């Protein structure tokens, strides 16, 4: 079976005039992603684990077309995303959506929730009337556990967990095949995060979704991942089946990450 996504030798280097990345004026370049290759099979949850600054968010942005890679290829459903243009690109791009980390920053505070969730339709399905768009928004919001009166309200009226659900609804409305979730529960309280993880699992089954799940938290990743890649300084240092990586890590950095996970004493 063909992988849904094939990434080869993806690279991105940022150039800066000193300052942010450098204590010395020399290090004016930062290689955020340094030759990353991987496949993602349909229906699986591919987790990328790494600490801040390892390049995982830059990688996510390249997969979504928000940043242009310096080198490498991204093949989605057998089509090279870096080569496509115009309407063809748009029709592939809508199949890849993102759920962001910060439920407070990822929703436009001046738009009503209905507009926020329906906005992707306004861009990709122009034939729909506003009424039809809002009906679709209402339906997807209900699926994520928010009822109809959410449509008319503003983001600030909702809790962090609810805002994250709104972000998920927005990601789902175009019926994507692949969702890139970048730290979707890091900003949430424990029990709220657990609800969102459960929701993501249910949605995956119901809509036959494939996930790329990015996190710095190994315990969170352990809940959902079929395969795990450990990222450090722009490269994958280890990758494989989740159970193996988590129970029998080969790479010393992976072991270091696992050792640092605080243990909960259980009865």
């Amino acid at each position, binding site marked *: 079976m063909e992988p849904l996504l094939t990434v080869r030798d993806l690279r991105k280097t940022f150039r800066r005039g000193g300052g*942010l990345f450098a*204590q010395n004026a020399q290090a004016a370049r930062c290689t955020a992603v340094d030759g990353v290759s991987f496949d993602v099979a349909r229906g699986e949850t591919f987790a990328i684990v790494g*600490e*801040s*600054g390892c390049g995982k968010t830059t990688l996510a942005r390249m997969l979504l077309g928000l940043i242009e890679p310096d080198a490498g290829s991204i093949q989605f459903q057998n089509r090279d995303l870096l080569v496509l243009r115009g309407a063809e690109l748009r029709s592939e791009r809508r199949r890849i959506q993102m759920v962001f980390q910060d439920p407070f920053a990822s929703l436009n505070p001046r738009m009503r929730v209905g507009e926020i969730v329906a906005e992707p339709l306004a861009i990709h399905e122009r034939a729909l009337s506003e009424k039809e768009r809002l009906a679709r928004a209402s339906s997807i919001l209900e699926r994520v556990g928010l009822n109809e009166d959410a449509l008319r309200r503003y983001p600030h009226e909702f*809790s*962090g*967990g609810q805002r994250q659900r709104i972000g998920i609804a927005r990601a789902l409305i175009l019926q994507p095949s692949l969702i890139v979730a970048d730290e979707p529960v*890091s900003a949430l*309280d*424990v*029990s*709220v*995060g*657990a*609800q969102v*993880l*459960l929701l993501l699992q249910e949605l995956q089954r119901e809509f036959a979704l494939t996930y790329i799940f990015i996190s*710095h*938290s*190994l*315990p*969170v990743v*352990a*809940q959902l991942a079929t395969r795990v890649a450990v990222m450090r300084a722009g490269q994958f240092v280890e990758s494989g089946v*989740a*159970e193996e990586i*988590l129970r029998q890590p080969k790479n010393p950095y992976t072991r*270091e*990450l*696992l050792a*640092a*996970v*605080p*243990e*909960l*004493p*259980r*009865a």
Partner: protein
Amino acid sequence: MSHLLEARGLIVELPTPAGWVRPVNEVSVRINAGQSLGLVGESGSGKTMLSLALMGLLPPGARLGGEATLALESSAAKLTSLSERDWRSVRGGQIAMIFQKPMTSLNPVLRIGAQIEEAIRAHHSQLHFAERKRKAIDALRLAAVPEPEVRAEQFPHQLSGGLRKRAMIAMALSAGPRLLIADEPTAALDVTVQKQILDLLDRLRRELHLGLLFITHDLSVVAQVAERVAVMYAGRIVEEGPAREVLAHPQHPYTQGLLKASPTLERGALKPILGVAPHLTALPPGCAFEPRCELRRMECTVAVPALRLTGSDHAARCLLV
């Protein structure tokens, strides 16, 4: 032995359009010098408001009730009735706080050293320039900041998340407080850095004989740093006891639910708590957790249960224990 900090029936009331609410509702806690208490609660539990009450940082309009006493050298400060003038020496000088987001509590346009010196000057105005500078560098060294002289000359944005946290710890400790309140000190930190910060706080607690009030929503973190744990829900303490005991044998259904909802490296064991925490303006008449509780019974809706002992040192606010 008298406690370093003792709060009895502490109440914080805030005015809202829907009436007065109590984010802190008759809370009693005790911390001894050199001891750490982990205060566990999610958003809306009242844990941050409690820490602000203990720092005299409540928002204007807030009402404070009950008692809170901090033991000093040879006297005691009644935190619930301090004048703003007295607060200026207690706040930072006796009780210090590390806030959750270092980028919003560190001044981005001042060098790290200068910010620490500012804190020192506020509490030790008699020291002159060179001494303050030295003390600031000592504080950074105490917080295990490598090359403290170099870091003191840098701006916050030049430091990593972990170093900024250490700089904040240095600033908090620079005036020599007896009690340190740490509000979600490891939130948003990578797990390896988190471990370092927790180890640092633990070491400082022992070496400086500090009282430590550690506030978090993450049970796995509290297990690493607290000797005692108090769990808050809707403004009240619902369970308290020795940390190991509470985490290994939780008695209150909310604590049990939190544990089951906390992800571990074991797959498939995650179970969310259904529902959401109640709005303080719409609390049920009985147990605040009852609507979400799997074990609920009719009696639970009648009145708020009292904290009952379930062991010699372990109490839970539940009729079923």
